[in-house]
């Protein structure tokens, strides 16, 4: 009888042991899958495009997700001291782009933004470039602005706006804000030009009808007239 009890005890132990091993194996597999998923998300692939290549957006340390949330308000100054608030562009699609003078990929996409800024002006698109490295000095920032040919507003960050937008562990970082003030798309790292244009179109299409400021309305009308004249 004792032998039977001992045997039952041993069998029980073996069952527990095997169960634990199976559980550990399953847990290991799950962790590996999650790690692979995280690695995949962080992976940066270079995608050739029209002779030049650009990397896909990276998620490395990209902080809290802002998509679907109201874009945090800010009032910052331009290089020439003018105050600019996000609320100045209420009712319009806005691309809020954080960049820095030491960031190579940032300087690649800035001329693209300039191009899109002109291309989608009729749809009310505004682009705000927020320089994340104010300590570099206005001269250094102005030098990059000149070199990249950017004419949209360049704003000097105040330390608070970076926190409001999630801490910015990666540059470039862009937030596409629709007419209702909601972040439609958030990107970290350099995307392709096509991806940027797709995001702009999505932002323009989102958030209901545009309510353009009078000055913009005039510009839109003028642009429309020019286009019509060109068509003739």
């Amino acid at each position, binding site marked *: 009888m004792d032998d039977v009890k001992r*045997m039952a005890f041993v069998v029980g132990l073996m069952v527990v042991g095997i169960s*634990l091993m199976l*559980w550990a194996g399953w847990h290991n597999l799950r962790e590996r899958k999650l790690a692979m998923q995280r690695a995949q998300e962080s992976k940066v692939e270079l995608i050739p495009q029209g002779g030049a290549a650009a990397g896909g957006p990276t998620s490395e340390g990209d902080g809290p997700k802002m998509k679907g949330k109201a874009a945090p308000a800010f009032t910052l100054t331009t290089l020439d001291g003018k105050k600019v608030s996000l609320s100045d562009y209420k009712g319009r699609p806005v691309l809020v782009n954080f960049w820095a003078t030491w960031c190579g990929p940032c300087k*690649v996409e800035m001329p693209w933004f300039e191009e899109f800024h002109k291309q989608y002006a009729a749809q009310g698109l505004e682009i705000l470039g927020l320089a994340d490295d104010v300590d570099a000095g206005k001269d250094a920032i102005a030098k990059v602005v000149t070199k990249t040919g950017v004419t949209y507003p360049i704003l000097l960050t105040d330390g608070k706006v970076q926190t409001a937008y999630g801490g910015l562990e990666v540059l470039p970082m862009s937030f596409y804000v629709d007419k209702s003030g909601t972040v439609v798309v958030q990107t970290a790292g*350099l995307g392709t030009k096509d991806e940027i244009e797709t995001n702009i179109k999505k932002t323009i299409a989102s958030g209901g009808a545009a309510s353009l400021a009078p000055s913009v309305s005039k510009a839109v009308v003028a642009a429309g007239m020019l286009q019509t004249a060109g068509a003739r």
Partner: protein
Amino acid sequence: MNLRAFVIAGVMVAGALGLGAQQFGGSDAKPKGYVTFAPEPQVVKAGKASVVELRFQVRDGFHVNSHTPSSELLIPTVIKLQPADGVKAAEVVYPAGTKFSFSFEPKEKLDVYTGTFIIKLPVVASAGDHTVEGSLHYQACDTAACYPPKTLPIQVLFTAK
């Protein structure tokens, strides 16, 4: 026979528990920096001009600007060391960087460190164990994004005999 079965079962349970514990304790921690310092204890001749090597490792897929980057706008890698008793240190010697271009900007050549790079610290030290505290300031990028400048605290350990 029963005893053997008992031992096997015990080993299996212990093994499973150990494996499970290993999984729980597995390092899920994301590296906080892009450069690590490998503090290797070194031995130099006491009272003689010697060189202590400071070995750094840049994370795979990343690069940092060299000490002499190609543009004034880029942030150079700079080491700062605190004075230490019994150690007379001269200016550190930085390695030369390697040329690097972003694929999207092939014409612009950057001067960077990737993989392992060694900064040399010339010293004359008195006999004994020494610790030099310091920090490495650097700014890293990968192929599509850049990361804010970081400061890595370091502790250089060596013995003069």
